């Protein structure tokens, strides 16, 4: 298709890209909505069980976390090991603004999202300014995540320390009943996917791909690498913060383990690496799969980590690039063989 357009004259080429853009918008929204429709059936299946619905809501929250992390790491190669901490800024921020300060719930969530977004942007700016590589960005953000956990424990008067605290705002609203909360989180997943998809299709997406494939070449071609990295971190961290805040309100409580490194970051990395780093649907596939696996193995207690870890090893040996890119490549290969 593109080859044919390349042969055509300039004007038809422009017309072609416009048509292509319109098609690709439809090509983005339709699969996202279709996936949303399938996931929307989950409450009809599991709606009677409060426990399973809570698990599903957590699964959707993880899908959102994975999308945010995918935007930061998958699109611009910044290994942020502070997914939990950024979500925690959203969660604790929303809870403190709403309960302690007494702001309306929506304002609190927006403020907390802003705080998380700015923190992510700042971390990215520091990493870009000091031109830290993947591993060093990882370590600095990991250090930030550990410091954040420690602050939560230390500032016990504000955060409730080890046991966390119950959020009173919104406790009687629809947020704490399971089925509306499920649809709220599902809506968030779909919005994030569309935002991510649109970003990929815009000039921002081209810049992301260029700087991820070859940073020096991108810089030489006029891509402002530093600026796009910070953009990605601002948007991605905002997503993480908003998810953390909304999730906290649907649970009615926050605690340090809700946003712990082992509880959030490790899981998100595994989910994303399984689904496919950089792909649009990878985060959702990973989140659904690993939430289901985790739930199926829940009776094993601590022993559950054994098959979980073994699965991680086998999956990464077998499909190191993740399920969705691997399938896409296989399909493309087969199409090429046929033609």
């Amino acid at each position, binding site marked *: 298709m593109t080859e044919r357009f390349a042969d055509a004259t300039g004007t038809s080429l422009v017309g072609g890209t416009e048509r292509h853009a319109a098609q690709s918008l439809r090509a983005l929204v339709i699969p996202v909505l279709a996936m949303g429709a399938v996931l929307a059936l989950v409450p009809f299946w599991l709606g009677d069980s409060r426990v399973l619905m809570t698990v599903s809501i957590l699964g959707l929250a993880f899908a959102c976390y994975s999308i945010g992390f995918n935007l930061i790491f998958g699109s611009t190669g910044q290994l942020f090991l502070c997914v939990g901490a950024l979500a925690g800024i959203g969660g604790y921020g929303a809870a403190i603004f709403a309960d302690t300060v007494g702001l309306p719930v929506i304002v609190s969530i927006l403020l907390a999202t802003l705080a998380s977004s700015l923190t992510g942007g700042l971390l990215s700016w*520091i990493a870009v300014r000091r031109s830290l590589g993947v591993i060093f960005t990882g370590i600095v953000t*990991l250090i930030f995540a550990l410091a954040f956990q*420690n602050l939560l424990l*230390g500032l016990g008067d504000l955060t409730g320390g080890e046991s966390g605290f119950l959020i009173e705002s919104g406790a009687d609203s629809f947020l704490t009943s399971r089925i509306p909360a499920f649809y709220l989180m599902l809506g968030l997943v779909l919005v994030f996917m569309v935002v991510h998809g649109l970003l990929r299709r815009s000039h921002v997406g081209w810049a992301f791909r260029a700087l991820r494939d070859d940073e020096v070449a991108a810089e030489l071609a006029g891509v402002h690498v530093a600026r796009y990295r910070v953009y990605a971190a601002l948007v991605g961290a905002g997503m993480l913060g908003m998810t953390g805040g909304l999730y906290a309100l649907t649970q009615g409580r926050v605690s340090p383990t809700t946003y712990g490194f082992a509880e959030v970051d490790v899981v998100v990395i*595994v989910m994303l690496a399984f689904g496919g780093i950089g792909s649009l649907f990878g985060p959702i596939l990973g989140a659904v799969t690993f939430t289901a696996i985790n739930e199926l193995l829940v009776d094993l207690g601590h022993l559950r980590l054994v098959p979980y870890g073994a699965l*991680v090893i086998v999956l990464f040996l077998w499909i190191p690039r993740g399920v969705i890119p691997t399938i896409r490549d296989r399909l493309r290969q087969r199409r090429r063989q046929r033609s």
Partner: protein
Amino acid sequence: MTAIILDGIVLGLQFGLLAAGLTLVYGLGGVLNLAYGQIAVLSAMAVLLTMDAGVPVFAAVGIGLVTGGLIGLIFDQTILRPIYRRQGEARVLLSLLLTLGVAFVVDGFLTWRYPFAGLSLQIGGGPIDLLGVPMRRGSIVGSVVILVVFGLLFAFFRGTTLGRAVRSVIEDEEGARLVGIDPSLMLRIILVFSGVLAAVVALTQSMIRPVTVTAGFSITVLALIVTVVGGLGSVSGAFLAGLILGVINTLATSYIGTFLSLIILLVAAAVTILIRPSGLLGVKE
């Protein structure tokens, strides 16, 4: 003040040793082993189980060291094979994910099988006076052991042909291959070393406080931070970074309080990385 500095040095030596095993493997193979803490815990459990079976302490300690080395060898022969086939950042990332999987398996099994186990080696006898400060005997013995281990490491790297061969691979793998050094053999040796070092970490820590089954993850994270501050691939950097961070930590604990001390430690680490991204004694890439 002397007491605080001395405590800081005891802690710093522990930090330094933690980082040594991790930094060697990273420097040589570009592999980030996130199951490092789990190797330490497995060795500790081996000592605990053999001691419970009635084996004398010294033999049990020997078994712990052998266990660490064996696990290192097993790592090299199994999980690291596919990792070696990759290059650069893809290698680091895959090693991170695969060893994380191993860490899950080990942690899951140990916390299920021995949920409350913890190794603590009691060193008998009263405190020893050092520069007028009474120090716990366990701290002194542990620190001496660590100093001896570091001495052996330095002697190995500077004084022996094998050690120099290993260093040449760290500096230039291709060049080393050209002069007839087998990099994969050096890697195998270093992984065994790293496993033994993890076992020594567990043993010396257990002289001061118990090493529990769940300690693996925190050992790895701490080792990672010290490693990066010291400079990836540099044993002397690990030693220096460990001492500095240890002293900072105890100073902060006694003057400011425990809650902020870890944050100060973390900030100190972050600042070092930001000022010198290659670490204190790391080689600029």
